[in-house]
């Protein structure tokens, strides 16, 4: 009995493994913007899914959205978008990033993103995002300065005029702990 009690007292807390936590994307919206001298066009997707796994103070996030889920209000334009971005061949856009677990308490974070889209991988360094805590949820907004050349996309043309290379993507995500 004394041996058992001594062993229980000597159970060292640092030997216990660090607790993992997870984050789930509650809801999200991605919006791309394309500029042309005759047209300004935006495509919106609400079919974003995401998950973050935190371990030892570091979190790995994955956000993914199907290319065909973007809606610009014109079915013909959406089909051309899927074609020019090789969306049938590479149907998913994925975004991966690593953040410290302590970032959830900040109001602004700088994230390094790795984006897979149209069969290409592009890295974006120090992208600024704003965080707003709403109860146990975190609302994140920001803009990714993507370009067509980053993903080797031939710029679509209208009346022989090509669209601009810049294709900023607005991000609006709400995360909750799992």
């Amino acid at each position: 009995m004394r041996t058992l009690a001594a062993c229980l007292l000597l159970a060292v807390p640092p030997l216990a493994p660090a607790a993992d936590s997870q984050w789930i994307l509650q809801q999200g919206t991605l919006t791309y913007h394309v500029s042309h001298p005759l047209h300004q066009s935006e495509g919106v997707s609400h079919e974003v899914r995401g998950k973050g796994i935190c371990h030892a103070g570091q979190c790995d996030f994955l956000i993914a959205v199907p290319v065909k889920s973007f809606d610009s209000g014109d079915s013909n334009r959406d089909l051309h978008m899927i074609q020019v971005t090789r969306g049938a061949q590479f149907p998913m856009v994925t975004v991966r990033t690593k953040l410290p677990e302590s970032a959830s308490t900040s109001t602004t974070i700088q994230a390094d993103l790795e984006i897979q889209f149209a069969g290409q991988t592009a890295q974006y360094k120090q992208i600024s995002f704003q965080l707003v805590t709403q109860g146990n949820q975190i609302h994140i907004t920001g803009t990714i300065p993507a370009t067509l050349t980053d993903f080797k996309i031939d710029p679509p043309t209208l009346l022989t005029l090509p669209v601009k290379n810049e294709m900023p993507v607005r991000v609006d995500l709400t995360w909750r702990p799992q």
Partner: protein
Amino acid sequence: MRMIQLRIAALIGFCLFALLSAAQTPDTPTSSQDAQKPAAAQDQKAPDSQDKTQSGSQKPSTPPGDLPNAPSSSKTEPSLEDLGFSASQAQGDLKRQALLDKRTHMLKIHQRLGLIAAIPITASVITSLNAGGKNTSTASRDLHAALGGLAGDLYFASAYYAIRAPRVPGTETRGPIRFHKIMAWIHGPGMIATPILGIMAFNQKNNGEKVHGVALAHGPVAIVTAGAFAAALLSVSVKF
């Protein structure tokens, strides 16, 4: 006293040994899985990209719909399957991509021919001012007829590519393209009726007759046709 200290030291050593033995667990192999397996090889910019295509990826036993709420495995990176995307959703479809490529190619030709056809159509409308009336020269009428014929040829060549462009299954027509397609139901029959009525009017004029009967409709039908054609062109060119 010394005996008591020795006993305590032995006890501590025994308990530590027991705890260490219990804490040792065999290493579980972690494999980063990525359900996105494009049909063609990706041109990776980052050589140390985390995405790896594996032939032996883990297959979760729970249905995809329950995966977002299921605890992940011991690996630290989430995967597309963790998000609830099935392998078929992440899998590329080369046939569909080829279909889209062919569709875009044909619609680009349709657009080019349609824009070119707008030139003789516009010229025909302008030369129609001198093609009718009492004292019109044969040359003016011939020019108007030639431009009309050229306009018709280019129009139907453009229409061919639009009609024959492959349809994408499961797509609902939405937005300005709907108006563009609706206009085709006006300028399509109009481009058939206009030259027929024009030939009738042309023959009557050549016979020295005043244009009469159904041939009188050539002008109004041509104007409505040209108007619908212009509206169709503008609907996909500028944002209203």
